[in-house]
């Protein structure tokens, strides 16, 4: 179970404080999958970081009675001067996990070949994404936090992610944040729209999507009379 109680996050900005998350409370039961839709900058990633414990909330608290992953497919934690192998070794050490088994799994999934022993800075963005995802899969968690995973990688990568994460680990809880509504619809069983610091929950995707569409909706400015007469 993950319980959020009155999670509030404010960031200092020039001339005051900006509230990103405003007293958010919800529970996530084991095995449930929550999809969070929101515009860019709505606070989706902040929410994920707070749930993961990487960042602390300004107020409120998070209670975790199941193990929670770091934000998935996130590649920023790699030291780019180190090789892929060294990075896997580091993660294995931190989580007290079997390096020999992990490196086999990463090698198998990420298909980096000889690049596994090259510095990460020489990797293409696709290779980094594959390494990041493979590394995220070597440590097992009860709940996976997934931040815009659909944005990275090619079709082959997307298929492999699909199998690893949503087939093999379909019994786990997940929180997926994205602005890709179709992706969230296909993988979650309940939904929320994050807007203006508040979470609006919907059991039904269509309800959530209607609200989300309203929020991101942007109509081109209607033609002025001048333009109209020119036509």
């Amino acid at each position, binding site marked *: 179970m993950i319980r959020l109680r009155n999670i509030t996050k404010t960031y200092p900005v020039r001339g005051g404080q900006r509230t990103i998350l405003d007293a958010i409370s919800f529970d996530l039961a084991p095995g449930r999958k929550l999809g969070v839709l929101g515009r860019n900058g709505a606070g989706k990633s902040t929410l994920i970081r707070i749930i993961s414990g990487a*960042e602390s909330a300004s107020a409120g608290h998070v209670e975790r009675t199941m193990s929670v992953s770091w934000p998935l497919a996130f590649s920023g*934690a790699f030291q780019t001067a180190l090789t892929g192998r060294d990075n896997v070794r580091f993660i294995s050490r931190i989580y007290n996990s079997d390096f020999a088994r992990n490196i086999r799994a990463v090698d198998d999934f990420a298909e980096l070949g000889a690049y596994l022993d090259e510095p990460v800075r020489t990797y293409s963005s696709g290779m980094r994404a594959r390494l990041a995802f493979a590394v995220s899969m070597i440590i097992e968690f009860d709940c996976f936090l997934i931040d815009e995973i659909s944005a990275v990688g090619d079709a082959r990568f997307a298929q492999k992610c699909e199998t690893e994460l949503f087939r093999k680990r379909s019994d786990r809880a997940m929180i997926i944040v994205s602005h890709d509504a179709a992706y969230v619809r296909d993988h979650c069983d309940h939904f929320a729209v994050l807007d203006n610091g508040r979470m609006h929950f919907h059991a039904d995707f269509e309800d959530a999507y209607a609200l989300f569409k309203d929020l991101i909706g942007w109509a081109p400015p209607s033609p002025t009379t001048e333009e109209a007469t020119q036509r």
Partner: protein
Amino acid sequence: MIATGEQTMPSLQRSLAVQRRVILALLMREVMTRFGRHNIGFLWLFVEPMIFTVGVTALWSLTKTVHGSNIPITAFALTGYSSVLLWRNMPGRCINALYPNLPLLYHRNVRIIDIFIARLLLEFLGATMSFMLLGMLFHMIGWMDAPEDLLEVIGGWAILAWFGMALALFLGALSMRTELVEKLWHPLSYLVFPLSGAAFMVDALPRQAQDYVLLLPMVHGVEIVREGYFGGSAHAHYDCAYVVAIAITLTFLALLQIRSVAPAIVIE
């Protein structure tokens, strides 16, 4: 299969085990990023400070620096400059240490203080290895005698290291608040160097200057190390209670500082 992250309040023993593991992992990672696998690799950890120390020792020996005592100049330079490396490099490694490592905080078990401790341990190992190896080398080729009281040398060295670590933690945490720390530490550390006791014995100073110079905690540490090395002939001046009190206070302030900046840390 589930390897991590039980969220019930863990026992102290378990927490310590996790922290030890994380610090070790960070330390190995630091070794790899700083020294890599090229040429002599991690040997640079102590070869670099050794080159520094040998250089300074050679310069001071050639110029026959006046240090106002009958201690052989080689031994004087080795004890003095090694001590400087210890207290000066630690803060240097901790100031702004966090920014390049911020993404590591995504792993819940990695805490800010672990990043600092890993760097401090590495710095301590480098300076200590350099001091030990050069001490043994100079002894073997007959440039200096073995220490008269090895335990006292170790004690003085430990006090210097403690002071250096506390200072480093404090400045490291403070550097997250303001970049002034980085700007000011460089000039300050250079200005304090000639006053730090590396290049003089307190005994050789005029009485009035002694009182002022002894306000600097590192001076006490160097004096203890030298008394351990040269015994009574060093005429060391120091006050153990004073340095320990300063180190305790600084450690406490450092921990408070780390605790208070932690909630404000924003990861990319």
